[in-house]
């Protein structure tokens, strides 16, 4: 029985491929800003939005998206206060998000199943979601290309970027929104696990071999595409869960690269 016989698998390949194009782009900047765990933090923080949505009888998915954006701006704001330890801001907002979700859920009559409403699976994507992801991805990709230099410069050094005329605040805000939107849409569609690890693992791989910023971005996209597609294949034929398989493919590949690099006798960068 062929893998492409089923519509849901075809869709998984299409959506997986699209996300593999954009998530590592966002991810490269995220990693360079030392915010690697942002995917995980945002998807957890949006639980608070689900709870708030249920209390206020707003659509919980909307609530989640809203909470995601709010949390992303929270991270950005705290990062400014603790510039030397920007990754702390993630832990703080994540705590706040889950804590709030916990407290709010006490007031929710119908908590339903929080997680299942928030987190999708790559093999169960509806028509609407597919087009939505495609649309959002196009938007993110375009923004990323248009703001390529601005994002890179801002990640490198905000002060120098400002002096050379980059509207740093605007660029940061746009990027924050892009990140939040990507995470919330993708988490709902293909699952938070895939999004948050696609932000980091391919970038980690490409940083091991990339010889320039451009290569680092391109390789990370390439790695993400390889991981997603081969992960889907493997999960189908070996009867494994798709999200976990995609992620593990990536992690194994990273280990391989590190081992090969070490074996090749190259000294590690200090």
């Amino acid at each position: 029985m062929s893998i492409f016989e089923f519509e849901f698998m075809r869709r998984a390949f299409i959506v997986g491929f699209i996300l593999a194009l954009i998530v590592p782009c966002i991810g490269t900047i995220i990693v360079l800003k030392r915010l690697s765990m942002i995917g995980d933090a945002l998807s957890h923080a949006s639980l608070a939005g689900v709870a708030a949505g249920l209390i206020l009888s707003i659509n919980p998915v909307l609530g989640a998206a809203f909470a995601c954006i709010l949390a992303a701006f929270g991270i950005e704001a705290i990062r400014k206060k603790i510039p030397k330890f920007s990754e702390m801001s993630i832990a703080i907002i994540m705590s706040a998000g889950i804590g709030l979700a916990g407290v709010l859920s006490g007031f929710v009559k119908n908590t339903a199943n929080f997680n299942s409403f928030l987190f999708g699976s790559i093999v169960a994507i509806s028509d609407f979601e597919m087009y939505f992801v495609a649309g959002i991805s196009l938007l993110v990709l375009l923004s990323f290309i248009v703001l390529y230099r601005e994002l890179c410069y801002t990640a490198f050094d905000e002060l120098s970027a400002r002096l050379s005329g980059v509207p740093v605040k605007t660029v940061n805000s746009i990027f924050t929104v892009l990140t939040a939107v990507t995470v919330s849409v993708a988490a709902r569609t293909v699952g938070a696990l895939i999004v948050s690890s696609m932000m980091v693992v391919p970038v980690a791989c490409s940083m091991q071999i990339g010889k320039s910023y451009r290569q680092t971005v391109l390789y990370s996209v390439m790695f993400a595409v390889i991981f997603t597609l081969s992960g889907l294949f493997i999960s189908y034929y070996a009867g494994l869960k798709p999200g976990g398989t995609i992620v593990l493919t990536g992690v194994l590949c990273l280990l391989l690269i590190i081992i090969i690099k070490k074996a090749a006798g190259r000294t590690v960068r200090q």
Partner: protein
Amino acid sequence: GKKEPAGDGKLSVCTSFYAMYDFASKIGGDKINILNMVPAGTEPHDWEPSASDIANLEKADIFIYNGIGMESWTDKVLSSLENKKLTAVQASSGISLLGGTDKGDPHIWLSPEKAKREMENIKNALSAKDPGNKNFYEENYKKYSAEFDALDGEFCSKLSPLPKKDIVVAHQAFGYLCADYGLNQIPIEGLSADSEPNPAKMAEIISIAKQKKIKVIFFEELVSPKVSETIAKAASAETKVLNPLEGLTDEQEAKGEDYFSLMRENLSMLEEALS
């Protein structure tokens, strides 16, 4: 003593989730003060007690739970309580399980016949704890045991003539029900409701559904219907609710639904799906 006696002298009963609550309140009637811990609309597989829940347990006389891993927090919570008078009742005790181990399928209450046994366990516990009202409890049990028999009869008579025997369900909750009435459940997910489906299994279910011309893919109200919808679409089937009675939604609670009304609704859903 530190503990204030329950003001009205009634037995104070805590139950873990909806099915247990419904059974215990049917037996205890107005002779007991009953409190359900997992709130309406909450999927009980990953619920956790708060301080006030535990404070309630500290003051309760009886705590009724299903067991077999359904409420995984019970071991931990019970061992942390200092309430000496509390009797913890595992409603599933003495009932033969699918697979025969004690780590098997907990969804016993979905078989009317086994649900009756659970209610009997509950009745015995209440009588032992509160001998003064023993007769009242016995009366109630008799009344509802007849209802269970009737429900069992309805399931038997309505389901046995139907040509199809296969149902596709959201999570593996209907093992006991299927065993009783000769049905075969094809679960999309495992015993707990919150995992991610595996594509090979989805493909297999779709193929089976197509091959056996299954018309309905069941989902649950407390779990996202996305996967069921995906499968239904691929197999040109429709989706319907099959309620595992793990919790009620607000509306169901407001409408005064109970175990019997919901099981009858399940029955009519099954009839539609299997005819």
